[in-house]
C-alpha cells in the first residue's frame, strides 16, 4: 500500500526540489526585474482601449482608427481646439457658386505625401472618388456630392446634388484625408488595412491592431511634432489601462473604454497634481429613447411626466462624480445648441401631477421596463441610480424595471420597436446641430405623428410631427441666423413632445504623466498627438 511507504525513503528530497524551483523562479524574476528596459525618453507611449482594425480612411470608423488617422493625415479643413473651422490642406473656405451647387476648394501647394510624391488636386480627386466608391461611411457624402474633379493643378471642384451648409464641416472629416495615388494604385478599389501613405505630421512605420508606431514626417508642411515619435498601444480592459498609467508604463492615457471609477480616480490624482488632465469638447450625448408609437408612451403627458422625474444632476454626480455633466437638449452646447435648458427640469411635484393626469398614482403604478446595454458600465449605474431615485420620489406612481441586454442585440432590435424605453448614446458625424437632429428626428414616411420609415423609426422612438421633416430639409439649404432660428424651433418642438430624454454629455479626457505638458484635443475630440511633449 502507498500508505506503507517507509518514512526514511532515500528519495530526492521533495522539499529541496521545491526550494530549488522556488529559488530558480525568484532568480528569474529578479533577473527580469533587473532587465527592466530603460524607457527611452524621446518617444511617448499613448494608451487607449481602442483597437484599430484598419488604418485605411475608407474603412476607419472607430474612435481608435480616426484618432490614429488624425495624426497621419490632414483633412481639407480642421476644427481647432476652440472649435473654429480652419483650412488645413485647403487654403481658404470653399467658394460656393450662386446656385449653391458648385463648390471650389483652393488647395495648398508644396505639400508632399509620406512617399515623397506631391499632393495636388488630382490626388485629392483620387482620394475622394476612392472614398465615395468603397468607403463604409460614404453615405455621409453620397446624397450631397454629385461629382468631383480637378479644376486646376491645386483646385478642387465639387458638384453638389443640393445646396449644403455643412459642407466645410463634412470636408473636415478625417476619412476624407488624401492618400498617395502612387502608393494606393493597386488598392484603388479595395482597402489597404495595415499601411497608410498620407500627408500628416507622422508616418506610420509599424502597424498591428494593438500597436502602432508613429515617426515624425521630416517633410511635413506644417509645424513639426513636439516629440520624437509616438507608440499607440491598446490594452484590453479598463483595469489594465488604469494600472499601466499608475505604474508609469504609459505616458498618456485616453479615457475611451475606461470605467467611471477609474476615470474618477485619475481625475482625483490630477487634482492632487500627480497627473495632468486634458479635456476635449463634449460631443457625445447620453439619452433615453421612448417608444412613442405604443402605449404607454404614445401619451405625451406621460412622456412629460417622465421628463420631469429625471434628476439629471443627482444621477450625474452619483454615476460619474460630475464627469458627465447633465444635459437638457439633444444638441450639445459645443455644437451650437440654441438653449442648454430646453427639456423639462427635474420637478417631482410636477411629475406627480402629470402622472396623475395620465391616470397613475391612484393605486396604479406605471411599470416601466428600461433597457440598457449591459456591456456598458455607466448605463447600468445610471439605470440603477434612476431606479432608486424614482423609488424615493414617486414610489406610488412609477416603478422602473431595469433590463440589461448586450449592445449588439439592442441595436439590432431598436428599429423593430422592441423597447418601451432604452438608454443609448450618440455622437454626430460632424460638429453641427444637423448631425444630432437628423439622425434622431428625420422621417421619410409618416402617418400623423407616427414615423413609419426613416431615422426616427430606426432610433426606436417612431416620433414625428406634421411639418417637422420639411423643416429639417429646409434647414439644410439655409445659413446664418435664419438656419439657427429654424433649428432652434425644431429643438423646441422636440422638447415639448419629449420622444427622447437627453441625459448627459460625455467629453473625451486624457491624462499625462506629470513630466509631460497637459494634453489638448482638437474640435473633433481627438487628442493632438503632435503637441504632446516632455517638459524641460
Amino acid at each position, binding site marked *: 500500500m502507498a500508505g506503507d511507504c517507509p518514512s526514511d525513503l532515500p528519495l530526492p528530497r521533495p522539499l529541496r526540489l521545491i526550494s530549488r524551483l522556488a529559488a530558480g523562479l525568484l532568480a528569474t524574476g529578479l533577473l*527580469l526585474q533587473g532587465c527592466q528596459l530603460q524607457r527611452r525618453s524621446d518617444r511617448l507611449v499613448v494608451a487607449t482601449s481602442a483597437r484599430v482594425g484598419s488604418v485605411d480612411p475608407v474603412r476607419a470608423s472607430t474612435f481608435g482608427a480616426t484618432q490614429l488617422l488624425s495624426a497621419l493625415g490632414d483633412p481639407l479643413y480642421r476644427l481647432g481646439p476652440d472649435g473654429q473651422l480652419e483650412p488645413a490642406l485647403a487654403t481658404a473656405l470653399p467658394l460656393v457658386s450662386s446656385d449653391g451647387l458648385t463648390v471650389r476648394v483652393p488647395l495648398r501647394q508644396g505639400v508632399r505625401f509620406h512617399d515623397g510624391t506631391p499632393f495636388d488636386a488630382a490626388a485629392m480627386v483620387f482620394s475622394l472618388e476612392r472614398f465615395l466608391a468603397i468607403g463604409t461611411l*460614404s453615405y455621409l457624402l453620397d446624397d450631397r456630392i454629385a461629382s468631383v474633379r480637378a479644376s486646376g493643378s491645386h483646385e478642387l471642384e465639387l458638384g453638389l446634388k443640393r445646396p449644403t451648409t455643412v459642407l466645410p464641416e463634412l470636408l473636415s472629416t478625417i476619412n476624407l484625408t488624401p492618400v498617395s495615388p502612387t502608393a494606393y494604385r493597386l488598392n484603388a478599389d479595395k482597402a489597404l488595412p495595415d499601411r497608410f501613405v498620407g500627408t500628416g505630421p507622422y508616418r506610420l512605420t509599424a502597424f498591428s491592431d*494593438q500597436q502602432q508606431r508613429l515617426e515624425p514626417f521630416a517633410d511635413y508642411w506644417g509645424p513639426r511634432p513636439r516629440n520624437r515619435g509616438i*507608440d499607440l498601444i491598446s490594452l484590453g*480592459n479598463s483595469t489594465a489601462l488604469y494600472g*499601466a498609467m499608475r505604474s508609469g*508604463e504609459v505616458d498618456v492615457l485616453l479615457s475611451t473604454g475606461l470605467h467611471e471609477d477609474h476615470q474618477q480616480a485619475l481625475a482625483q490624482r490630477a487634482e492632487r497634481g500627480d497627473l495632468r488632465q486634458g479635456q476635449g469638447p463634449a460631443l457625445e450625448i447620453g439619452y433615453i429613447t421612448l417608444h412613442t408609437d405604443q402605449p404607454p408612451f404614445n401619451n405625451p403627458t406621460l412622456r412629460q411626466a417622465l421628463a420631469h422625474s429625471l434628476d439629471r444632476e443627482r444621477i450625474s454626480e452619483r454615476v460619474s462624480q460630475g464627469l458627465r455633466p447633465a444635459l437638457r437638449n439633444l444638441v450639445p452646447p459645443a455644437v451650437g445648441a440654441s438653449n442648454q435648458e430646453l427639456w423639462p427640469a427635474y420637478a417631482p411635484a410636477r411629475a406627480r401631477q402629470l402622472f396623475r393626469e395620465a391616470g397613475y398614482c391612484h393605486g396604479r403604478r406605471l411599470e416601466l421596463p428600461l433597457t440598457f446595454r449591459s456591456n456598458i458600465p455607466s448605463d447600468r449605474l445610471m439605470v440603477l441610480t434612476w431606479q432608486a431615485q424614482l423609488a424615493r420620489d414617486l414610489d406610488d406612481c412609477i416603478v422602473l424595471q431595469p433590463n440589461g441586454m448586450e449592445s449588439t442585440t439592442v441595436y439590432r432590435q431598436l428599429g423593430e420597436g422592441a423597447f418601451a424605453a432604452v438608454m443609448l448614446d450618440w455622437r454626430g458625424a460632424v460638429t453641427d446641430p444637423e448631425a444630432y437632429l437628423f439622425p434622431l428626428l428625420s422621417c421619410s414616411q409618416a402617418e400623423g405623428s407616427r414615423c413609419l420609415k426613416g*431615422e426616427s423609426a430606426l432610433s426606436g422612438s417612431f416620433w414625428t410631427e406634421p411639418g417637422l421633416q420639411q423643416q429639417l430639409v429646409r434647414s439644410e439649404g439655409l445659413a446664418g441666423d435664419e438656419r439657427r432660428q429654424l433649428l432652434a424651433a425644431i429643438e423646441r418642438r422636440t422638447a415639448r413632445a419629449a420622444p427622447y430624454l437627453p441625459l448627459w454629455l460625455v467629453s473625451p479626457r486624457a491624462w499625462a504623466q506629470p513630466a509631460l505638458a497637459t494634453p489638448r484635443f482638437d474640435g473633433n475630440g481627438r487628442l493632438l498627438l503632435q503637441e504632446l511633449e516632455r517638459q524641460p
Partner: protein
Amino acid sequence: MSRRRALARYLAARLALVPVMLWLIASLVFLLLRVAPGDPVDAVLGTRAPEAARAALRSQLGLDRSLLEQYGQFLGNLLRGDLGESLNSQEPVARIIGQSLPASLELGITALLLAALVGLAVGFSGIARPEGKIDLAGRLYGVGTYALPPFWAAMLVQLVFAVWLGWLPVGGRFPPTLVPPSGSGFYLLDSLRQGLLGGDWQTLAGTLRHLTLPAGTLALLLSGIFTNALRLNLRRALGSDYVEAARSRGIGERQVVLRHALPNALLPVLTITGITVASLIGGALLIEVTFSWPGIAFRLQEAIAQRDYPLVQGIVVVVAALVVLVTVTVDLLVALLDPRVRF
C-alpha cells in the same frame, strides 16, 4: 491482428473522422452565428446609417443572399482552404489567424510547460510521507489552483505584480518602444535568435517580461490538474502488485519509485495533458483579455462581439482542427508508450 496494424487502423479511423467533425463544427458555428441577434453591418456602419447604405454593404458582404447560398459558398471556400475575408477589416482571415495563432501557441506552450513542471513537482513532493504536511499542502495546492476563477486570478496577479509592485508590464506582448522581432511570429524564438545572431538581448528580455505574467498565471491555474493527477496515480501505482513484487525482489525504494511506479503514473498524466490543451482555449481567453495578449482567443471574442462571421468561423475551424490534432497525437503517444492499450 498485430498491435501495429490495430494501431494503424485506429489512427486511420480517427483521421477519417476529422473532416466529419470539422464539418459538423463549422456548420454549427455558421448556423449559431446567423441565429444569434446582432448584425455585422451595425459593427461596420454603426446603427444610424441609412437603409440604402446598409443594404449596399449587406450586398457587398454577400449577406443579402439566402442562408443556403451563404452556407454553400462557405463550405466550398473551406474545401479550397479559403477562409474568406474579415467583414470588418477586409483582411484575409488566414492572415489574421496566422498573426494571432503564434501568440496563443507561445502563451499556451509556455504555460503548459511551466504548469507541468510546477504541478508535477508539487504532486511528487508529498509522496515520501503520504498524508503528511507536505502531501496535505500539495493537495490543497492542487484543489486550490484548479478552483481559482481564471479572471479573478489574472486580475489579482496583474494588480500585485504590475500595478502595485511595478515589476512586470500590465499587458501586451512586447514593449511598445521596441521593434518586435520578425520571423516565425513566436517572439520567444525570434528574439532568442536575434540575441544569438546579433547580440540584441534587450528584445529577449522584453519578450520574457511580457510573457511572464500571462504565462505564469495560466500555468498556476493549470498546474493543479497535474498535481492531482500525478499524486493520485503515483499513490495507486505504489500500491500495485508489480511495485510490491519489485520491493520483494530487494530493489531499493528510490528505484521502485523512479523506475517502476513513476512511468506508469505518468501515462494518465499524458492523457490529461491532451485534454488540458483543449480546455486551454477557454482558459486562455480570459487570460488573453486580461493581459491584452493578442492571441487567437482574444481575436475570437472580438470577432463574436462584432459579428464578424468569416473570422469567427475561420478561428473556430482552425482551433477545432488543432484540438483534434493534439488529441489524436496524445492517443498515439499513449498507445506507443503503453503496451497494455488495446484498440
